């Protein structure tokens, strides 16, 4: 486990690290079950293309939920994330790679300190979330309470 960051030692612009998340169609089915979001655009190719999508796409909430783990692990406590928001700008198409070890998509997440608030005891982490060379989340910001 990481050590808890100290607010006073952080600087705006500082990198908090990065991670890559592989996504398969199975992951989307698991997320659908775990979250209760069974919209068929996330698991049925014919339905997805029928409504004008390039194919099955990841739940925006899957991407948002996977992206914040970078912040949680950095902060050392999931409860430290007191505010988390994003806009969903581009879909993440997930290719059907069932039966092969290849992922259907990869999501690259990196984070940097966007703002510090000594009075509130919080740091804002701005996340950059990219898949297939495109930013898929915008204004992805997590406010973390630190001591």
């Amino acid at each position, binding site marked *: 486990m990481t050590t808890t960051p100290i607010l006073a030692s952080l600087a705006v612009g500082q990198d908090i690290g990065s991670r890559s998340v592989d996504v398969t169609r199975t992951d989307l089915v698991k997320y659908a079950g775990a*979250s209760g979001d069974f919209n068929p655009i996330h698991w049925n190719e014919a339905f997805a293309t029928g409504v004008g999508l390039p194919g099955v796409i990841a739940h925006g909430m899957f991407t948002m939920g996977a992206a914040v783990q970078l912040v949680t692990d950095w902060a050392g406590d*999931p409860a430290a994330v007191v505010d*988390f928001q994003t806009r969903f700008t581009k879909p993440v198409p997930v290719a059907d790679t069932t039966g092969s070890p290849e992922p259907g998509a990869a999501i690259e997440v990196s984070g940097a300190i966007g703002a510090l608030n000594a009075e509130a005891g919080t740091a804002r982490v701005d996340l950059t979330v990219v898949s297939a060379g495109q930013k898929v989340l915008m204004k992805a910001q997590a406010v973390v309470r630190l001591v």
Partner: protein
Amino acid sequence: MTINPDLQGRSYPAAEVYDVGREKIREFARAVKATHPAHFDVDAAAALGHGDLVAPPTFAIIIAQRADAQLIEDPDSGIDFSRVVHADQRFIHHRPILAGDRLVAELHVDGVRAMGGGAMITTRSEIFGLTPDGTGEDSREPVATATSSILVRGEGQ
């Protein structure tokens, strides 16, 4: 189908209670590929000062989307679910969600804005934790505020 402009300002009272279970927290954490031990191991959560497993930061979407369903499924709303796109989402945590919590959500429709042939609808779920107050009633404590905007695409959008 057109979106009912009178939706703005409407609210839906807290409906069913959502009981937060440990296995649901673990399942949701695995589903978003979270590995922090506080989602999985009660002792690890206790070491951080939490009374039980801590839910991941986006867990409240389960409760918020159940509340949203009341609006989407309201025949009076004019919303066609197959044309809904999630535009943005925010969670403000007043305190962490823990296993054992009993939660309810009150839904408020904060904004309805026409966009092309469709509409952008902003909803806010105020999520409260229930605690028996000893008189057979429950006291309510604010737990999280989940705000989301959905774009309902118009014909040809």
